[in-house]
Every structure is written in structure tokens, then in C-alpha cells.
């Protein structure tokens, strides 16, 4: 039975890990893990989460089980959050035996993703829309769209190198900055600022910044501060990238 309990704790951590990696709020991760733990009959569950680790300690009949997970990459995958949520609701109503639980947790990784070309098309559309949103012409929009395709291809191929975020965002924005100057040079689009802004909206951690401020106000201080710093550092990398591109073409 003790082995089962360890397995269950490990599965609860798996669910928490997937939630956090899919971009769920820290409070949701902690809440979900606690609920599932209590549904499985543990007397006491303590979860502590920051954006890079999850700790869980569960007490049962005088024994305490503690496990930790290190979280490396955080992205956004809403469908996975929905699925984790469904699973957690199901488990809270009827806790499953460990063998079924493991299967259900593994099934979470089979969440459908949009294909490479669908995402590419959406990049074009978003950059186009934001450029018009900021007052650009249709030509500016098309220029931004082309630059965003380059951005996506660079981003996609450089991700395999396992670079840290700062280098990745610096390189991405540097190349996009160059691409926009070249596109304007050959006559596609005219307003550099608006075209750049259309692409910056794809790069900038606006959501991360907004969420981290909320974390801080609602009491998840540590996660809030870490998220805030991560967003600021990412913004600095992007700023430096565009500044470097500008330095080459016009000189600062």
C-alpha cells in the first residue's frame, strides 16, 4: 500500500507539473493538487509551488511522503489545462486506482496541437492585424506578416539548440529587426515602428508581466517576483535585439 501511495503522490505531481508547464496560475496548480490529494484520503497535503519547482508533502497514518519536481520550460497550452482540469474533477468525484491513474496522466500528453503550418499562418495574421491595429497601412501589415514568418522559422529552428531564453529572444528580435529594414529597403511597407510593433506583440511577455503582477497582489509573492523578473529580462533581450538591428542600419 505504501508503494501505491508513493505512486499516487507521483501522479499528483505529474498533473501539477503539466498544469504549470501549460501556463496555469500557481494558485490553480496548488489548489488542484491539494484537492486530488485529499480526495485520495490523505490526512494532510502541503503543496508549495513557484514557477520553477513543485513540492508536495502528504501525510497518511503517521507517515509523511515528500516529493519534488523541477520545472524547466513554461509555455501556454490552454487545451492541456482544460484536460488536467477535467481529470482532476473526475478524480475528486471518484479516485482511481494507481494503474488507471498512470494511464490517465499519460493520456494528458496526447493533447492535440495545431500543426506547424497552421501556427505559421496565425503568426502572419497576428502580425498583420497588430500592425493595422497600431495604424499601419495594408503594405505595412504585409511586411510585418512576412517578418513574422521569418520570426517563426528562426524561433522553431533555434529551439532545438536549447538556448536559454535571453539568447533566444535576442537572436529572434535581432533577425526580425534586420528583416524589417531589408523589407522596407526593397519597398514592402514603410513605417518601421508599426511593422516592428506588430512583431513585438508576438515576442513580448505581456501576459507574463500581467500575470506576475496579479500573483504579487494576491499573495503568491515569490512566483510574482520571479515571473516579473523573467518578463523584464525577456523584454530587455528583445529591446537589445531591435537596438542592435537599428545600430547596424541607422546607427544610434
Amino acid at each position: 500500500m505504501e508503494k501505491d501511495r508513493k505512486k499516487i503522490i507521483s501522479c499528483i505531481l505529474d498533473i501539477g507539473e503539466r498544469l504549470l508547464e501549460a501556463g496555469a496560475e500557481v494558485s490553480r496548480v496548488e489548489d488542484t493538487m491539494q484537492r486530488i490529494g485529499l480526495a485520495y484520503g490523505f490526512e494532510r497535503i502541503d503543496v508549495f509551488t513557484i514557477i520553477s519547482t513543485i513540492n508536495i508533502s502528504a501525510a497518511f497514518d503517521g507517515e509523511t511522503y515528500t516529493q519534488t519536481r523541477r520545472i524547466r520550460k513554461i509555455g501556454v497550452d490552454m487545451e492541456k489545462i482544460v484536460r488536467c482540469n477535467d481529470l482532476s474533477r473526475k478524480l475528486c468525484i471518484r479516485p482511481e486506482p494507481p494503474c488507471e491513474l498512470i494511464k490517465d496522466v499519460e493520456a494528458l500528453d496526447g493533447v492535440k496541437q495545431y500543426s506547424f503550418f497552421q501556427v505559421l499562418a496565425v503568426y502572419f495574421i497576428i502580425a498583420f492585424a497588430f500592425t493595422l491595429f497600431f495604424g499601419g497601412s495594408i503594405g505595412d501589415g504585409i511586411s510585418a506578416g512576412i517578418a513574422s514568418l521569418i520570426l517563426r522559422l528562426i524561433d522553431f529552428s533555434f529551439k532545438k539548440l536549447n538556448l536559454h531564453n535571453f539568447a533566444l529572444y535576442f537572436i529572434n528580435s535581432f533577425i526580425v529587426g534586420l528583416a524589417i529594414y531589408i523589407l522596407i529597403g526593397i519597398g514592402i511597407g514603410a513605417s518601421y515602428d508599426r511593422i516592428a510593433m506588430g512583431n513585438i506583440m508576438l515576442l513580448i511577455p505581456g501576459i507574463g508581466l500581467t500575470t506576475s503582477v496579479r500573483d504579487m497582489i494576491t499573495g503568491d509573492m515569490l512566483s510574482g517576483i520571479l515571473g516579473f523578473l523573467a518578463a523584464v529580462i525577456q523584454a530587455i533581450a528583445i529591446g537589445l535585439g531591435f537596438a542592435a538591428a537599428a545600430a547596424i542600419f541607422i546607427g544610434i
Partner: protein
Amino acid sequence: MSEIIIQTAMSFITSAGFSVLFNVRGKNVFINGMGGSLSWIIYLLVFGHWNSIFWSFFVSTFVIAVLSYLLARPLKVPVTIMLVPMIIPLIPGGLLYNTVFNIITGNTEAAKGFFNELVLELAGINLAIITVATLFGIVYSVKKYRLYGL
């Protein structure tokens, strides 16, 4: 006038587009796009009326947050799935970039102006979300535990 129409239409596209990037699936992509347009229309109305950055962001986010809480239950999704993509047009990504870019290029005066605006917008968005989350939290607790004899 045409500017307003373009911005509202583009808000739909950006919110729906980011929904796809965030792997939202099915009809929710369309709903999020509508929400994105709505958030921008409300922002324009409030800003046109009171000319206040803070209140225009607060009111717009407040309405969108209430809407996402009300929609989340019947659509059986967590609130985040609606709320985050719907406020995309309000997210001050451009201001964050401008602040950082002006600091890097040594233009501190301009950076200060952008930073002030950034703080106001972030405050408006986040305080609205927190207010709505707290209000709905109270309503749920009162219902669940039948507090105060309700």
C-alpha cells in the same frame, strides 16, 4: 471612425489568433475573438468619455472578467481560457517594449513617460481581475456553505 472599425476588427483577429497560439480549440477561438473586440470597444468608449487611462483599462477588463466567469461554467472550461485571450488587445506589450528600448538607447525622459503609462495600465487590468475574482469567490463561498442563511 474608420480607425475605430479597423481597430475593433483587428482586436477580433489578434484575440482569436492568440487563442490558436495558446492551443485553445473549437468554438472558443471564435468566442475569444468576439471578447477581444468587445474589450477594445469598451476601452474606446470609456476612454472617450472620461479620458482616464486607469479607468478605461479597469472598466474594460472588469466587464471581460465578469463575462469570462459567467461563460466558463456553461462552456465547462477554466476562466483563464477565456480571460487571457480576450484581454490581448489591452495587454501593454508595446509600452513594455518602448520603456525598455528607450532605457537601452539612453532616452530616459521618454522611458519615464512610457513607464508611467505602463504602470497605470497594468494596475487597471490587474485590479479589475482581482476585484472580479474576489467577488465571484465570495458568491461561490456563500452559495456553497450557505453562509449568512442564504
